[in-house]
């Protein structure tokens, strides 16, 4: 079975975000970039599926030279090969989805895994877009995944619960935390990954359909008051919530 796993290179969640001077992007100075946390669950599920059914896992990423760090990590975890779609442009979700889908068409996988959300632009729609371009089935925000022949049984998270989905291959699955426990790259994996080639492709892209007019910081919330340091402050807290904030 051929499996594609899409991986993205994003600022670490522990990083402070500052706006660049163009007021349309973030200032990358001093920002540590890491593999998108949700993509680690996608990689794990891709590798587990390969271990059960055989086949190969192709890592696919779109971005700059820097993305190679995340691709190398994916290879070290166990992906067999990798493709980097090179671009330095800031692209919107639709343009990225079309570029990924184009390459996935060449690879012709039965399964595509990716994180349910990239923790930079936070749209949570990439898997759904790619699936619909390719006419693949989709399970987004998956917390469990089982394959039986052609049949997929997967759970997805909804407000206050879960729904169990039945669908079939070919499909795109977007990974939510809880899907599995991602493995660590072994020393052997890291050594083997060094010999794996990252295929690089220049891409042609269409115009963005959505324009960022401005990027800005949210209005910072100011510190309020410390009412006390023990249980004797509780009646005053409840009074403030009722009478001043009027929220309870």
């Amino acid at each position, binding site marked *: 079975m051929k499996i594609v796993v899409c991986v993205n290179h994003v600022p670490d969640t522990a990083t402070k975000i500052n706006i660049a001077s163009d007021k349309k992007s973030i200032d990358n100075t001093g920002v540590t970039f890491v593999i998108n946390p949700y993509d680690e669950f996608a990689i794990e599920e891709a590798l587990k599926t390969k271990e059960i059914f055989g086949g190969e896992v192709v890592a696919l990423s779109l971005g700059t030279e820097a993305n190679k760090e995340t691709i190398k990590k994916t290879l070290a975890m166990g992906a067999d090969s990798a493709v980097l779609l090179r671009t330095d442009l800031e692209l919107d979700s639709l343009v990225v989805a079309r570029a990924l889908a184009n390459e996935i068409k060449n690879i012709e996988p039965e399964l595509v895994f990716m994180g349910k959300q990239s923790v*930079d632009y936070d749209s949570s729609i990439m898997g759904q877009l790619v699936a619909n371009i390719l006419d693949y089935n989709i399970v987004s925000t998956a917390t469990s995944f089982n394959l039986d022949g052609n049949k997929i049984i997967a759970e997805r998270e*909804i407000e206050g619960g879960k729904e169990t989905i039945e669908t079939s291959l070919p499909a795109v699955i977007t990974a939510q935390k809880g899907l599995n426990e991602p493995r660590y790259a072994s020393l052997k994996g890291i050594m083997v990954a060094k010999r794996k080639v990252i295929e690089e492709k220049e891409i042609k892209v269409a115009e963005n359909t959505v324009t960022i007019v401005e990027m800005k910081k949210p209005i910072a919330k100011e510190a309020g*008051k410390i009412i006390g*340091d023990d249980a004797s*402050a509780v009646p005053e807290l409840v009074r403030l919530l009722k009478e001043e904030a009027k929220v309870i």
Partner: protein
Amino acid sequence: MANKIIAFVEQRDGEIKKSSLEVLKQGAVIATDTNTSIEAVIIGNEINNLDDIGKYGVSKITHLKNSELANYSVSAYTALLLSFAEESEANIFLFANTAMGNDLAPALAIKLNCGIVVDCIELEVEDNQLVATRPVYAGKALTVVKSNSEKTIFTLRPNVFTIGNISDERAEVIVKDIAEVNLTNKVISVAKVEGKLDVTEADIIVSGGRGLKAPENFGMIEEVASLLGAATGASRAAVDAGWRPHSEQVGQTGKTVSPNLYIAVGISGAIQHLAGMQSSKYIVAINKDKDAPIFGVADYGIAGDAFEIVPALIEELKKK
């Protein structure tokens, strides 16, 4: 600009979701501001009080009905929405950014070949064009965006757009029986935790962190939540320790929330947690470390021992 707006209304178990009422109300405001029409569409089987949506400023709703549509199916719902959208010739589509809305909207965007802007926290008309504000990096930054596409789908973050005043109007309900349903993607069961509120939908959230020391100590968090009609939340540390389910995690690799009141107990306030909750209208922090970053965003704080303060809070809340 807009000559027609369609608002997608979401039902679960035959009940209209509150987040969809927020979408209707905001859609009605935009329709008025741009002097255009708005109508609603809902997919499901038996649905209660559909004409109620008139109260939120939308006077017509089409109900696409079949017993197989009671549960969500991305394949069935996408196909039906696509033909409805094409027939209506609308150019603005509004969804709530829920598990369902965030799944359907991008599918429709591809099928309609139109722009998509998700998780908006503001959607306003400027120079006769819609301008959306959406958080990125879990709220550490905001982007103001415009669509260059002829047609655009916007999804609105739940619990942000206020409903405000409602009228006594009733909506015209058009029921269309659907003959064939595409169930290549089918929900075979739904597991709901009874009476449990989701953090993204709650007006009040009571959250616990590593300061609670052990999973059994979340009992008092649940008790405060129950007394306030609140949802329970958790920090990443509490989730990663296996004390709480991931569905409760607030922060950058969990959920971004903006309730009226957020009570953080034993949460120090790591940057990725603050990003996910600092747009809450009121924040209360209970933490024994008075220098914890959580106090930097809290409206009211008690810098003391949660194991004394929370039981006292439970007693105080029980008084009335």
